[in-house]
């Protein structure tokens, strides 16, 4: 028995040691906590990166279950890109279980994509959990705003260039090309959304604030009573009354939210429900960052027409 166990352990050790250098020799192995950050890292890193994401696009990134399979991904990573602002705090548990010193907090293989951004909804007074599962350092859903992409990609570029300084020029070129494409798309999106400036919408979870602000729309309320807390019947009654009073015609929901409930509210308030792409790949046809924003702009515009 003891000998058999020893043999198994020895085999694992040898296999592990042999497998140490498996993988693309020149590519930076990057793991991003969300698919948005994966997509943005890919556009900057180009052929020099191999990027994987921990959360799927249609998963709620607030509360991801820490599976050992995530640790396997981080175990092999040279670089970990996190959203920060306490959206993906679960990533710390993944890092602790991955035994990868390259990506522990403070290491050079860490990129906090929120670094240097001016964050919306930073609490200025006391907050506690009577307000629900609040984000105490501000709203973390900045990647949904295409206007934030220049700053996010700048953070990513810095991180990649730290590991491969020789390729900085290439990364900068990739980023510039992406921002050029984003510029063109932004002009299109701005035109599409221009007729709806000032329109009021209801959201399921308060994650569309940056996106709405970018295009001049107003968030009039949330289906959730408080962040992370399911609505009570009283809240829904008030919400429906508010939607009728203010002639609000659109509810934005995420793929992981209770769409049937939103449909019921919409039906009572004579409004529509639009499923938004809460991340790259969250819904069909959103496989790139620009595709995702494109989808969301079209979805909102159609919903408000």
């Amino acid at each position: 028995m003891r000998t058999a166990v020893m043999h198994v352990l020895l085999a694992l050790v040898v296999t592990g040691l042999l497998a140490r250098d498996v993988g693309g020799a020149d590519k930076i192995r990057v793991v991003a906590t969300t698919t948005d950050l994966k997509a943005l890292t890919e556009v900057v890193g180009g052929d020099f990166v191999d990027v994987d994401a921990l959360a799927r696009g249609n998963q709620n990134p607030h509360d991801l279950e820490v599976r050992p399979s995530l640790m396997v991904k981080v175990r092999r990573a040279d670089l970990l890109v996190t959203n920060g602002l306490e959206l993906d705090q679960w990533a710390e548990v993944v890092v602790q279980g991955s035994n990868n010193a390259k990506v522990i907090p403070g290491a050079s293989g860490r990129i906090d994509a929120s670094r240097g951004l001016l964050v919306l909804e930073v609490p200025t007074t006391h907050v506690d959990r009577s307000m629900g599962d609040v984000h105490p350092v501000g709203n973390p859903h900045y990647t949904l705003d295409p206007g934030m992409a220049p700053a996010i990609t700048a953070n990513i570029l810095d991180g990649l260039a730290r590991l491969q300084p020789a390729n900085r020029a290439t990364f900068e070129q990739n980023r510039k090309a992406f921002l050029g494409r984003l510029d063109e798309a932004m002009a299109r999106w701005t035109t599409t959304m221009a007729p709806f400036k000032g329109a009021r919408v209801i959201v399921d979870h308060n994650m569309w604030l940056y996106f709405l602000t970018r295009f001049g729309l107003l968030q009039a309320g949330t289906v959730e009573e408080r962040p992370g807390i399911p609505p009570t019947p009283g809240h829904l009654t008030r919400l429906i009354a508010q939607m009728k009073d203010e002639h609000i015609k659109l509810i934005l929901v995420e793929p992981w939210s209770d769409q049937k409930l939103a449909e019921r509210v919409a039906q009572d308030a004579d409004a529509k429900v639009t499923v938004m792409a809460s991340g790259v790949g969250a819904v069909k046809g959103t496989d790139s960052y620009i595709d995702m924003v494109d989808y969301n702009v079209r979805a909102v515009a159609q919903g408000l027409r």
Partner: protein
Amino acid sequence: MRSLAGVCFVAVGLLASSPASAQDVESLKKELEQMRQQFESMKEGYEKAMNQMGERIKALESRQAPAAAPPAVAAPPGTAPPVLAAPPATVPPAGATPPATAPPAIAAPPATAPPSAVAAPAGPPPTATPVSGQAVAQTPAASPNLTELARPREPFSLYQQRGAGQLLFDIGVTGDFIGDLTQNNVQQAQGGTFPGLENYVFAREVELSLFGQIDPYARAEVRFEASQEQRGQSPTVTLAEANLTLMTLPFDTQAKLGQMRNRFGLTNQIHEHDLPFVDRPDVLVEFLGQDGLVEKGAEFTWVPPLPFYVELLGGVFNGDNDTAFGFANIKKPLVTGRVKTFFELGDYGAIQLGASVANGLQPNGLTNTLVGADMKYKYVPDGWQHPLLTVAGEWLYQLRRVSAPTATDPSQTQTLNRSGWYLFGELQPVQFGALSRFSLGFRYDWTEYPTNPGQQWAAEPFITFMPSEFLRFRLVYKHTHGNTPGCCTNTNVGSARIKDEIFLQSTFILGAHPAHPF
């Protein structure tokens, strides 16, 4: 802005001063002149401070990396106006309290961000300039003016000093309270699941947790625990865990040093309040005691770079656990080992498998070896926030050397081979709405006794309600059946061979609590 506030303050002061009728003109003129001088002095002070701040910004900008990134607030050419040009697009609902949030213009960048709102991020975080520290060091020591004197001081300013920029570790408090109802004979025998606390409400565990990074190389975790051992007594405070983890060791290894709940089996490492059932499984209580295996020593882990997850663990400890070991000498230590692996089964299912071993000496110097195997399966359908189904189980096998003196050989020993296991399942069948907060669970226990003959089984259905991630209530019924008379009997007062128990558990979490692993 601050100058304007100063002017307003002066103006208000002027208006609020004593009525002119009570003053002569000369006195008023003198007062006005004094205020004018004070205002000029304040203005000069501000100009001086602003100039110095401007110079500091220039100096810092020249030290930062060149602006590879455009400012976060600046949109690329041809794009929409910057985010900060517009207020956030929220509209407070009618009758609701406005959210306690700042407009974006005063939103602070993260602590590691450059001081200027428009500066681009520079090098890696560890080498980033400690902006806040410099700000303190270089602020000109100007004499306080009226505005500064009017500004709230402690304790109000204390709140402003807290936040993301502070060197604080995470702090959390958990409370776990249990109401225990059972038959009188079980209470008399003190043979319940929580011995001595039958038909009683008690604080099983109130825990203060402190955890965070020590430095770039290590993190620490300290937990103090207050728990009630006997009815009528105040809870006693103990050090539940205090350890550090070295995260940058060579060959991708980690070492955890100090006092810890051992990573032995599936549930030993889980604290009471986090257990997926109300009580520790019978087999663990019988073989490792009420508190489980909590030892002082070191654990080393290695996660080999394989395509699938494998964690190898080895540990060396005192062997303080007096139920299974108790020799308590690091020269003849308790040695533990564990291997754990994990597989995704399609997009929605996942299984974790583990095997553990612990070998140490009992106080009489004879060895005891525990071998364990465990599994955990979860099924989370697409779009669900919680598992629909969780199934887990653990099996433990004991090889304990005990004295078995014979007439010819008084030092003769023999091995007691004993085992036990449990299987647990939990169903959380509703995806959304209020009912999604409920789950139904069931655990079946079967275990032999580590030294006495006989065995017992138990069936434990329960229902859990979690109004939020931080609050949980659980109602449990447990039926235990020991099939060896005398196994659990205090012959003086009663028997607990067959017992029925009802538990009501309430658990809360205040503050920080790390995410739970699979």
